[in-house]
C-alpha cells in the first residue's frame, strides 16, 4: 500500500518544491488552471521535470531489482555495480567525441554498451573470487566503478573544448534530470513502461534463481542463458536511466529493498512496487534538489547519496549479522 502512495506523494512534493515553493492547494489549483502564467510554468517546466525524475527513479529501481535478483545479492545496484558508471562512460564518449552517428542514437547506444560491458566485467571479477558473495561483488563493483570514474574524468578533461561545456557534462554526471519537452517525456514514459514489461518477463526466472543455481536449473531454468538475458535487460534499463538522469546512486538499492519488505521476495509483486517506490523517491529527492539552495540546484545524485549511503550501511550491517 505504501508503495502505491509514494508516486502521488512524490509528484505532489515535486510540484510544490523548487525556487518558488507552493502549498499543496496552490500546486493543485495551478495545475488545474494552465491558463495562468504560474500554471503555464508548472505545466511547461515543473511537471515534465518531476515526471521525468519519476521515470528515472522507476528505471533505477527496476535495474536494481533485476541486478539484485541476478546476482542474488541485496547490495547489488546499478551505481555500486559499476553498470551505471559504464553507461556514463559510454554516454560521455557519445557527448564528447565526434561520431558518425547522431547524438540521439549514439548516446543510448554507447550508454547501453557501457552498462552491459561493465556489468559483465564485475560479474567475471566476482566469479574469479568466490561467486556472488556480498564481499566479492562489492569489491569488484567498487574497483570497476573507480576505474570507470577515472576513465570518465579523463575523457571529460581530454575531450571537452569550447564547443562542449565541461560544467554541463559534469552536472549530468553528478546526476540530474533535465526538463524534457512533452514529446521527449512521452518517449521516456514509453521506454519506462517497456522496461517494466521486460523486467516482469524475467520475474519467474529471478524467483527461481533465488533458490540457488542447482535447484533453479532442476526447476527448469536454463541458468546461464537466463543470466545473460537478465544482464542484457538490466543494462538496457540502466542505460535509459543514465541517459536521462546521469549518475544517480542508491535509488536502485533502496527501492527494491523497501518493496521486498512490503511485498515479499517474489518478483511479480516486487518489481512494480520497486518501480513505484523508485519513482516516488526520485521525485521527492529531485524536489529537494531544487528547493534546498534556491535558486541554485543541487545535483540529484548528491541528494540520493545523502539518503542512500546510510541506508546502504544499514543493509550492509544486516547482511554482516546474517553472515
Amino acid at each position, binding site marked *: 500500500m505504501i508503495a502505491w502512495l509514494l508516486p502521488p506523494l512524490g509528484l505532489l512534493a515535486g510540484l510544490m518544491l523548487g525556487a518558488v515553493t507552493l502549498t499543496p492547494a496552490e500546486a493543485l489549483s495551478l495545475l488545474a488552471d494552465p491558463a495562468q502564467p504560474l500554471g503555464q510554468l508548472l505545466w511547461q517546466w515543473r511537471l515534465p521535470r518531476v515526471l521525468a525524475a519519476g521515470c528515472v527513479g522507476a528505471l533505477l529501481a527496476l535495474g536494481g531489482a533485476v541486478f539484485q535478483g541476478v546476482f*542474488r*545479492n541485496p547490495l547489488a545496484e546499478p551505481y555500486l555495480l559499476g553498470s551505471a558508471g559504464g553507461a556514463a562512460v559510454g554516454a560521455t564518449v557519445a557527448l564528447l567525441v565526434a561520431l558518425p552517428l547522431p547524438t540521439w542514437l549514439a548516446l543510448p547506444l554507447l550508454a547501453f554498451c557501457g552498462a552491459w560491458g561493465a556489468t559483465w566485467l564485475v560479474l567475471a571479477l566476482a566469479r574469479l573470487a568466490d561467486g556472488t558473495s556480498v564481499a566479492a561483488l562489492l569489491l569488484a563493483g567498487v574497483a570497476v566503478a573507480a576505474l570507470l570514474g577515472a576513465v570518465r574524468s579523463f575523457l571529460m578533461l581530454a575531450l571537452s573544448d569550447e564547443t562542449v561545456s565541461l560544467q554541463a557534462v559534469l552536472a549530468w554526471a553528478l546526476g540530474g534530470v533535465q526538463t524534457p519537452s512533452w514529446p521527449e517525456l512521452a518517449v521516456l514514459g514509453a521506454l519506462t513502461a517497456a522496461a517494466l514489461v521486460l523486467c516482469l518477463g524475467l520475474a*519467474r526466472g529471478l*524467483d*527461481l*534463481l*533465488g*533458490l*540457488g543455481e*542447482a*535447484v533453479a*536449473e*532442476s*526447476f*527448469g*531454468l*536454463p541458468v546461464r542463458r537466463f543470466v545473460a538475458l537478465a544482464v542484457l535487460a538490466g543494462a538496457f534499463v540502466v542505460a535509459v536511466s543514465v541517459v536521462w538522469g546521469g549518475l544517480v546512486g542508491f535509488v536502485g538499492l533502496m527501492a527494491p529493498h523497501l518493496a*521486498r519488505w512490503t511485498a*515479499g*521476495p*517474489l518478483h511479480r509483486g516486487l518489481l512494480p512496487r520497486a518501480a513505484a517506490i523508485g519513482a516516488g523517491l526520485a521525485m521527492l529527492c529531485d524536489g529537494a534538489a531544487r528547493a534546498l539552495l534556491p535558486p541554485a540546484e543541487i545535483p540529484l545524485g548528491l541528494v540520493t547519496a545523502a539518503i542512500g549511503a546510510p541506508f546502504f550501511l544499514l543493509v550492509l550491517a544486516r547482511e554482516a549479522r546474517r553472515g
Partner: protein
Amino acid sequence: MAEAALSLRGVGHRAGGVALVEDVSLDLRAGEVLGLIGPNGAGKTTLLRLMAGLLRPAPGEIRLHGRPLPAWPARERARRMGYLPQHFAPHWDYTARELLRLGLERGGSAEGLEEVATLHGVAGLLGRRWSSLSGGERARVLAASVLATRPGVVLADEATAALDVGQSLALMRRLRAAAREGAAVAVVVHDLNLALAGCDRLALLHQGRLQALGPAAALAEDARLDAAFGVAFVRVRTEAGLLLSARGGD
C-alpha cells in the same frame, strides 16, 4: 522388464584433470528406491548431479524415459524430475507457500497448492518464512516443493545430512511414498544403516567407479563394502534386519 525411468551407460565426468566418475552404467527403475553409497570422495554427489542433468557426462549417455537427457526441453524435464540438493539455502526469505508455489509451477500452474501442502504435512507452515523454520520443517517444505509435481524421477543428494534421526526417517518415508506412487528414486545416503532400512537396491561407489550394485540386503553382506570403506564391518542381525557397525580401520 519395464523400461528404466533413468538409464546411465558408460557415464564419466572429469574436473581439473581428475576423473570424479568413471564408466558407470545402471538403470533406475520406477517404484524403487536406489541408495548411492560410498566413502567420501567416491563420486556419489557428482553421479547424482549427472543424473539430474546439472552436469554433462563425458563420455557416456543418460536417458530419461528412453530419451537422451539433453534432448528434453528444460521445463518438461523439470516437471518429470525432482532434485533435492545436499544444502539448500534460498537467497531470499521466501515463505513456505512461495517455495511450494515455485515447485508446483514446474507443472504449468500453481493450482492445488493447498492439497499438495496437506499431502506433505506442511499446510500449517505455509505462511512462515524460511528463516523462521526449524531444520526438520525446512526439509519437509523443500521435499514438498520438489515432489509437488509428482515427478517420475526423484534424486536426493544427502538430503538427510543435516537432519536428526527422526527427521531423516521421516524424509526417507516420504521418498518411499513417492516410489510407491511409481517414482524412481535415487538417494545419496551417508548413514549405511539408513540406506539398508530405506532402500531397495544399493549402488556402491568407490574412487568414481561403480563397485557393486544389488539388493540392499545382499550388498550389506558383500566384502566389497568393507574394502571400499577400509573397515571391517560387524554385521548384527536384528528383528528389524541387518545392522552394520564399523570396527577399526587403518
